């Protein structure tokens, strides 16, 4: 589904990613762990198409197509979803409106008929019910006045509505207490299907107790330093990232 080959990315003069290789197949969950400043969020942004980065080498191929020439909205329509570390507040725009515009924009992209207000609300209510969320969050402006947990749950709701093939969760656990973390993880797990995949970016192992990865990669100093199964996360929890900073030093 996703093939990253020898990816080099710079911001200004600084090279952030220095040759990333990563293959993600349908049905898999990959965890990318690493210390702060290792380039984890840069990788997430590159996949989703955020500007401000320069790709100086390598390729990001998604479902056989090079992603790097596509606008963020085209990537979204093709099934790429980024759950933000810091979801943005948009005052004055109702959550429902936002979700409906997003879904219908994706449907238009694929030449499908837009959902009317009735059909959309019916679908949306079913999704919120499935995720155990209150309708109250739908009427409020996007993320405005949401608690940290609500914001992350809102990301999961967007995921549920847009049904991406590839979800990238960027430090979804940051700022969440254990209850909120559990709820968010359950949401993500419930959306898991054999034909989709997820990349879970996190600093800590605790999220991986709830979203169990098939593979764990350690990203430090712009490179994947080690890859392994879920047991690697436990090892990191115990030893920390010290060994990787030494390696680079």
């Amino acid at each position, binding site marked *: 589904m996703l093939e990253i080959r020898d990816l080099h990315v710079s911001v200004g003069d600084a090279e952030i990613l220095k040759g990333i290789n990563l293959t993600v197949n349908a049905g898999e969950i990959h965890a990318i762990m690493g210390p702060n400043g290792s380039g984890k969020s840069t990788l997430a942004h590159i996949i*989703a*198409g*955020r*500007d401000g980065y320069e790709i100086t080498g390598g390729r990001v191929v998604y479902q056989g197509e090079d992603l790097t020439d596509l*606008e*963020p*909205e085209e*990537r*979204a*329509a093709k099934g790429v*979803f*980024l759950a*933000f570390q*810091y*979801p*943005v507040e*948009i*005052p*004055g*725009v*109702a959550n*429902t*409106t*936002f979700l*409906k*515009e*997003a*879904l219908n*924009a*994706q449907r238009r*992209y694929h030449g499908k008929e837009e959902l009317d*207000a009735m059909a959309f609300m019916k679908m949306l209510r079913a999704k919120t019910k499935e995720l155990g969320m209150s309708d109250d969050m739908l*009427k*409020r*402006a996007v993320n405005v006045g949401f608690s940290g947990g609500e914001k992350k749950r809102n990301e999961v709701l*967007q995921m549920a509505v*847009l049904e991406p093939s590839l979800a990238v969760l960027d430090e979804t656990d940051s700022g969440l207490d254990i209850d909120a973390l559990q709820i968010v993880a359950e949401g993500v797990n419930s959306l898991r299907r054999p034909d989709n995949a997820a990349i879970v970016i996190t600093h800590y192992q605790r999220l991986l107790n709830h979203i169990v990865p098939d593979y764990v990669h350690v990203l430090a100093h712009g490179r994947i330093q080690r890859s392994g199964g879920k047991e690697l996360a436990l090892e990191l929890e115990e030893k920390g990232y010290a060994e990787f900073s030494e390696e680079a030093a």
Partner: protein
Amino acid sequence: MSAPSFVEQFPRLGSTMPDGDPAWLAAQREDGLKRFGDLGLPSRHLESWRYTPLKPLEDTSYRPVTPEDGMAPVDLVPSLLPDDYLPRLVFVNGRLRPELSRTERLPDGVRLECLSDALKRDPDWVAEHMGAASADVEEKAFLHLNTAMMDCGFVFHVPRGVAVETPVEVVFVGGLTDGPVAYFPRNLVVLEKGAQASLIKYHVGQGIGPYLATAATEIEVGDGAVLRHTKVQAETNDATHLATVNARVGRDATYDSFGLSIGGRLSRSEVTIRLEGEGGHAALNGAYMMRGGEHCDNTTRIDHCVPHTTAREVFKGVLDDEARAVFQGKLVVHEDAQKTDGYQLSKALLLSTGAEIDAKPELEIYADDVKCAHGATTGQLDADALFYLRSRGVPEALARNMLVQSFLAEALEEVKDEAVRGALMDKILHWLPAQCFLADEWVTP
């Protein structure tokens, strides 16, 4: 031979009410003409005109409207609240069009009529209120011009204790004339003690070619009265719109205004509110959206004349292309006006590098126990928010529109009447690029 200057043209034009002037009004005209002539066209050397050049006015010779201009065909009345029964007056190029107007559903004693009719019916009442709300106002050039040239306008009078339940709308349609016309409505709005009303003034342009609308509105909000006042300026982009509003607000009275400017090549709205009774409250809010070479000036002044008055002012604007906006907000707390609570906020969103805003908040405080806060910010669309929307599949153009809406929502939240707020949102949506029309409702708390 060079054309007469803007100022020189008016003495020759002459003007009277459609049915002639009483002697006192003729004398006031004479006086207004002289004063405007003495002051001349405000130049940029004057502090309050520094950012708004009137030079373009010199390029056009205007003529006064004729009865024929007033009869220009209007297929569909461009009403802000196109409801079949709401009381409404419609003026075309300054002349009342009775067949497009309707006032039959007003409560007993409430008057909504053209100034000319009011002069015939009750000249003493008009004489008493003409100039009353402007008496203590400093900035007067265009008020003098309006006094000199007034050619009609409307009277809205709500007697003591009467509440007008539905909004009342006055529509001014400009344009559709042969050559550039100038028209000068003079409006008197009087709410007596304890009265309540919601008034909409909708200035809208049609056709092509320049015209000049110079409106002056004088407002008296009596003790305990509540006036909600909405103004929409949607002149054509050849038009010049120069408006003054002077309001005086009594004890425990509320004057709650919102102005939306979405048109006009050159527009200036000068609003002065005097809080003259304890417990008086003024809300002076607005939004503007300008593009192309449009220039929009909001110059406001709130006078806290007595203790225990409150005011709130929020202006938000969106500027694209080479558009320019001016916001000048003066807040004056007079010597005895202790316990004044004033708040002012000006925010502008620049959508292009060629757009420009000059914002000048000013506080003049002569009392020592007051609370006054003000702020002015200018910014661009938030890159994080834009990426967030796009990352969900929302195309860039639509995402930008959503963020413009989001930006203006804060100002519109100040509009209490839902129907009015909805109509204003609709205007804003139509201003946005049409291919990305977003039909859903906005959120307001």
